[in-house]
């Protein structure tokens, strides 16, 4: 097998296109209150101009973060291979994990409020090693449930002891 990271011969699947929107909303939900509070504190401590400046500055920081979101979201990918699951992610630090189905201890499906409102969910696989990290965010809710069941049955079929 010549599986090369980023190769075309692995059928990479992508998270839902709604993930970008979810990430944007999450960024906005963090940025706006922070900018508001920061602006108010600065305004109360200094002058109104300073408060406005700092508030706007924090908003700009949030917008800058937004610029990177698209690339980060696009970097996510997963592939169900015959014996294992591959997950890749990251732009600055690129990571790629291989988790044999037989090693899965349990599977989580979680959905935060933002994800839920868009009908998304995150699937996360746990192995006995604390360092393994395999999660696939932003799957459509139905897909996530399907993936979970599929992984669970594959894991059961190939389960190996410690």
């Amino acid at each position, binding site marked *: 097998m010549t599986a090369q990271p980023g190769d075309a011969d692995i059928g990479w699947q992508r998270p839902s296109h709604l993930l970008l929107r979810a990430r944007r909303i999450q960024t906005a939900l963090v940025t706006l209150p922070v900018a508001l509070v920061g602006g108010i504190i600065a305004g109360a401590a200094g002058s109104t101009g300073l408060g406005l400046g700092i508030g706007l500055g924090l908003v700009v920081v949030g917008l800058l973060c937004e610029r990177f979101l698209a690339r980060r979201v696009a970097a996510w990918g997963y592939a169900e291979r015959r014996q294992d699951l591959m997950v890749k992610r990251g732009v600055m630090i690129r990571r790629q*994990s291989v988790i044999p189905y037989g090693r899965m201890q349990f599977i989580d499906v979680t959905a935060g409020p933002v994800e839920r409102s868009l009908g998304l969910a995150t699937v996360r696989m746990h192995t006995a090693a604390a360092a393994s990290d395999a999660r696939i965010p932003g799957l459509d809710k139905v897909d996530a449930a399907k993936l979970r069941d599929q992984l669970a049955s594959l894991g059961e079929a190939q389960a190996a002891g410690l």
Partner: protein
Amino acid sequence: MTAPPPPHPAPAPAGDMTAWHRLHPLSPLIRTGRHLMALGVLVLLLIFANHSGNNDDFISDIVVVGIVLVAGVISWLVTRWQVADGVLRIETGLIRRQSLRFPLSQVQAIDVVQTGLARVFGLAELRLRMAGADSSGGRLACLPLADAERLRTQLLAMGHAAASPVAAGGASAGAAAPSAGGPAGSAGGAAPPAVAAAPPRPERVLFRVQSERLAGAIILSRSGAYAGAVIAVVIVVIALTGRPGVIVPFLVFGFGVVASVWRRFNTEYGTVVAEAPDGLRLRSGLVQTVAETIRPGRVQAVRIVEPLFWRAFGWCRLEVDVAGPRQRRENRSEGQRLRALIPVGSRADAEQMLGELLTTPPRPTHPAPASARVKTPLSYHYLAWAGDDRYVVASRGRICRKTTWVPLEKVQSIRWVQGPWQRRLGLATVRLDVAGRRVTASIQDRSVAEADELLGRLPDLARAARSRGLVS
């Protein structure tokens, strides 16, 4: 593995294991002993610090001690345990009632721990280590030492019986069988199953630590250096100011550093590793003694550490990782390190132990590509790896060389990581995770082509090793 014991209605003492048991009545005293001692030291320090001798403080301390003791007695009253159907059950808790079940086939290791106070009374604590990464294992504190050791042998034997499918049918019988060999011993002589064999079995001693070497090694280690620095600073400050009182506020800090050195010496003193039929036996400790049994095939990783100063003497340290958390509330710093089979030993000792743990382990022979020198100039000289169809070994470290062996059949997941620097230099790192939380074999800074090839090849090798392991 054992002939099914005859359906013995098992008279009176057979209830020995399956009935509910209490812990030893002195256990509250021993469990709280450490806190009481700490409290006593604190009180003495306070009295020493403000000579006025504030009575209110003293009374409140007495009250605290009383509450701690009463809580201990209550927790003893409501705690009981039982072994039935290959499961150890512990029930505890007054307000929040807990019923814990530990399937013996899942047990990774069982330790017998004796704190200093427990040794005075001849008691011991039994600790079960399970595989889960964050669930806490079972603790039975305290039992009389002889009972604890017998129980450990029995539990391990029952775990084996339950784990091997052939004897699965005998598992429940095995639960009742050892009880026949229990305290009332000869009563069960009619059915002498292998599981009830007497604890002292032939052992082959593999390693015994030399005390003076251990002391020297700890002094030359990092914590020893810290302690030395702290003591030196204290002496200098006292010499310069001439008033010992100046250092009182920093005493706690200094005490902590010295205590960590002492704790390390205490836990690693007199380490003896022996090979027994039920696994590797590991005994160590000066005041608090620990006896562990590591079952065969449960070793997840082996690591040899060679710190800078130790290398001058040709010393090294060999550690193993066993699945599951090392949760020791009262002994944190010990818990964070791996179990050291060889706290300090010569290179030859380590090689011999390595040969016992792994069959024909490979050597890290492939050095990292030259371009890695730019990214990691300080550790480049130690970056190397090697692998065959059973093991992967990787070494790394700046001045302290760490070499980690991981059996491929234990690999949980494989990760390929590339940071921005590495991308520019055309490098990538491949990590192999095993169960447990501290050890990861990191094949660091390989060329991208090699890392990609590894990521493609290692999962298949690991799978092959796993299926081989299942067959044998």
